């Protein structure tokens, strides 16, 4: 099979992003993730399958969606539109009649060449400030064969390549992708294995091993640049975990940069759009200058003296 014809399920391609890599990024979001982090800000990326998304706030109440739906997914009651997401057969007919664009099917299959064509469209913008492509999700390593081929193609066209990953995958799969990356963001959500499992649904032994493998790989090949991302959440992040994580990263080959990300709840409204409940308790939105962030940074600086420490997703230099 021609590798350019490999397929993956993608749920969004967004140009003009300022975060998650140097310069202007074109983000490609892969659909499907093996983790179930309670705080996930991108619930459209959880399921591997395409799904119906409805923004009830945009609904103009014309009831056309109810008329065309053979599975009776859409139902208008006194308080407005109700959507029975489970019975949706993904025929897409309702999206065609919805004038205010309140609904769409999230996720479809793309071939490598289709995605590459989309990325290429932005080359004028990438070249002005060394921007490039960032693969995100969902979990990019969940569809690693596709990702590897896409990144290989980008590298042959001198496009800067970045991935964002949880690191939860077989090392062989990870390596096949990492070898075409200029930059890798690997999350280290929680250092303690049990608590990692509690909050994300999986243990982190494989993730820790992969981070070690990745850093060794980077040292040997002088690429990719590795940045370990640590999410800071009020009430979840503990000093012991921060310190233990910092010590672990400090001793890794190449002493990767540590990027501290303040928690945000911008994804909360997306859960309702996907017919899901927001699983995370009400948490405070953090800003880079909040005292908790400053405190965590101070700890990391103290316990990971070999590493560069940065705050927030923007201003990444690589």
């Amino acid at each position: 099979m021609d590798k350019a014809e490999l397929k993956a399920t993608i749920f969004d391609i967004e140009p003009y992003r300022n975060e998650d890599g140097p310069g202007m990024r074109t983000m490609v979001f892969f659909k499907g993730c093996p983790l179930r982090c309670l705080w996930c800000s991108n619930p459209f990326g959880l399921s591997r399958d395409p799904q119906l998304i409805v923004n009830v706030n945009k609904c103009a109440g014309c009831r056309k969606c109810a008329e065309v739906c053979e599975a009776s997914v859409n139902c208008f009651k006194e308080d407005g539109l109700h959507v029975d997401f489970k019975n949706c057969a993904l025929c897409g007919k309702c999206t065609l009649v919805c004038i205010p664009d309140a609904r769409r099917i999230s996720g479809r299959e793309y071939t490598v060449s289709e995605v590459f064509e989309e990325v290429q469209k932005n080359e004028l913008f990438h070249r002005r400030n060394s921007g490039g492509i960032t693969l995100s999700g969902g979990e990019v390593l969940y569809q690693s064969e596709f990702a590897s081929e896409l990144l290989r193609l980008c590298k042959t066209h001198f496009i800067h390549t970045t991935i964002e990953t949880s690191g939860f995958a077989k090392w062989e799969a990870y390596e096949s992708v990492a070898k075409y990356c200029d930059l890798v963001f690997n999350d280290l959500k929680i250092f303690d294995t049990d608590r990692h499992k509690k909050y994300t649904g999986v243990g982190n032994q494989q993730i820790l091993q992969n981070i070690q493998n990745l850093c060794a790989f980077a040292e040997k090949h002088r690429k990719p640049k590795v940045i370990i991302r640590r999410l800071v959440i009020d009430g979840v992040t503990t000093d012991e975990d921060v310190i233990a994580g910092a010590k672990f990263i400090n001793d890794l080959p190449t002493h990767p940069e540590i990027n501290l990300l303040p928690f945000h709840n911008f994804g909360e409204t997306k859960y309702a759009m996907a017919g899901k409940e927001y699983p995370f308790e009400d948490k405070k939105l953090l800003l880079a200058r909040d005292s908790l962030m400053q405190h965590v940074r101070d700890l990391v600086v103290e316990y990971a003296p070999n590493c560069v420490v940065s705050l927030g997703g923007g201003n990444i230099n690589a």
Partner: protein
Amino acid sequence: MSQETVAKQESMGGALGLEMRSGKITKVGSTKRIQELNGLLHGTRPSIDIQRVRVYTKVFRETEGEPELQRRYKASAEMYRSFKPVIYDHERLAGWAADKIRACQLALEIHAHWIGDDLDQLENRMYDPFIIPEEYRDELKEVHLPYWKDQTVVALMLKRLPIDPTLVMSGPCTTIENYLTNVGSHFIADFWTLLDRGIVGTYDIAQEKLKNLDLDDPQSFDKQIFYKGISDVCLAMKDYATHYADAAAEKAAAETDIIRKQELLEMEALMRWVPWNAPRNFYEAIEMVWLAIMFQFMEGAGPSQTLSRFDQYMYPFYKKGLEDGTLTPELALEYIEELYIKLTANPWIVSTARSYLVGGYYRYSHLDVGGLTKHGRDASNELSYLCLRAMRHVKTNAPTVSLLLHQKTPDSLLYEACALSAEGMGHPSFFNCETLYAMLSHKTGGLHGTGPYTREQLLEYAGPVGCTETGVGGLQFGHTESTTVNVAACSNMVFSDGEKNGKLVNARTGDPATLKTYEEYENAVKEQIKHTIKLAHIGSTVGEQIIAEKFALPTYTIFSRGAVEGGQDVTRGGAYCNVGPTIVISGFGTLFDSMAAVKKVVYVDKEATMADVRAALGANFEGYEDLRAKLVKAPKYGNNDDFADSIAAEMWTYVSEEIRKLKAYLGHYIDPSIKTVQTNVGLGEGTDATANGRLAGTPISDTMSASQQADTHGPTAAALSYGKLDFPIYTNGTILNMWVSRSELIEDDLDERGDDGEVMLGLPHLQTPDTTYSPPVYKEAGMTNFANLIRTMLNDMGIYHIQFNTVDKKTLLDAQAHPENYPTLIVRVAGYSVYWSDLGTKTQNDVISRTAHNF
């Protein structure tokens, strides 16, 4: 929404805006002096002055039977001589165009046909109200209006027009009224010559020419009138300044504060020197520039008196002042801020009907920074930075500060401009130099020729006029925003066979059901547009003839290079390059989307017939929701989708070529441009449902931008769509509006303010301890990507102009609900920055509905 909020929204408009924007809260600026003057500006309600009207009525009564040009010249001279000087505390620059700050003169000889109807509501109207004393109102009604009402361009036009006037005066597809009511407007004075030799230089030439006239030559009679008139207007400008000098001296004598006394004595010396003599320092030079603009305000009846390349012609004075110790960067900054206040303080008056569409009192004065020198080097200097920085301190809505961006423009100047963008005031506009030069090199040249400008002239003097029209300082005269052709309405004429409400108003293209292929449909659309262009052209040419006969402009002639030497008034072809009346295209986005929708639904997918579309449009889609959904979901311009973009490219070229075939009364070819200043809302009100699924009465697309909320794929996709088009064929310029979220550029928390940080390369180090301004904390990645977006769109793709609204959409929604919290919020609306609270609710809604990328 609470009832109170609804009530507030309904009463929203300039009147309430003025209430809220008191002098106290707007005391901003780099020094205490500027803060006081800014407070005075905003604390004073706009009013009407009738000194000019009195002069014109008197002079024209006394000169019945004299040549028309002589009468106009005498009136201008008398006006300059008779105005009473006005000097406020804290002022260093002198001169007002009326009896007080924020007062406006009436040009009854142009506007009498509408002012009569509006006079009684002027003070209480919702948008752009003006205070007018009772006795003025009575005098206007009894003495002046009866004299002028049958003399205006519009009144004379109605007697001459060879076609039905209702087709072109607020007609179904075109309107030419802007042209007819703007005599004396859209101009860049020859500041270079003026600063070099003063008014006396022009006076001496006129005298020399007069002396050498051979009265045996029949042509010399007209020349004699011209040169005598010019000489007298020059002397009258001197007299105007002398009156100010006397008033300053008188004030100084009575002044007890020793510092203020000295300032007033300096003002006296200033006004005894300029504008008659060539300025010797920065203070005199900036006063000269102000007077040149102000004299145009006084004589002209229209807007867009342009400062153009201020940082270039002022730089020698700046440099000299720093060298000889008479000037500091802070002092220059203060003068510039005072100039900005003066420009904002001269309101423009429009009819009540038009105030709903173009409200905001705004005069469209451009001030440009950057660009190239005549030898092709980067022209930026410290003043370029100071002009941008001044706007951050003083926060006025005038002038429109613009960056002339070239590949050679340093990044630091671009970043300074982006930092001004981040303030969310709509300043600055970004222009691409090379596209500007390419447009101008074919200006007035028609389809097969070129314009009269040399490359060197363009590099030295070219800059935008009015909103974004192409201009060349001192060398170009003519109206650049004359007639509007609503191509969205034209496209509908295909479905009504040229009829509106049962009456034939445009071309006959037959029953739409007989259009068997897309090509036939496209040809029918072209036929309709061509017909409308022709109507607009006929109307404006008659106007041009009337203006040349009866509406001479001595001040604009004096400020045009070579016009006095050549002995011809600018309305009669005296300028180096005569331009206009131009044809302005509105509603391109709606047209492109409508054609793409018809192509997709009718001719490609065959899901409906032309008869179906005709029926749906006639019913405003009621009962045709399914068809409307199909039309709405068709590919749209602004998403980098070639299905729609190739239609755009075809129509873009066709319309330009149809316009450039046409000749003006003065003999040059007509130039096309793409604009709409808020008028997309008003034009939309009169436009039936369109085939892109747009409902009747809602706004049509504005400028050359994608239709509202149609550009769903983000700023780069929109940019790529625009970048496919060939800009230079719109020889009179294009406008593009985009949104970038302010939170992309600065940290969200507005309370947090950074220090001034590193002094930018090029910006002098400023010590402004009294300033009210403190800079926000910038997001580095957001700022560099924003700067690169601009570079890519302009320098790489060749897009001519782009302007950004960088206020968050949620801010606008909140400002609409709670206007009292946002009295000084400024937004950019197609070519100029206006106070949010001065906009009509409909226009506010339109601004909000434009796609905010990354929101």
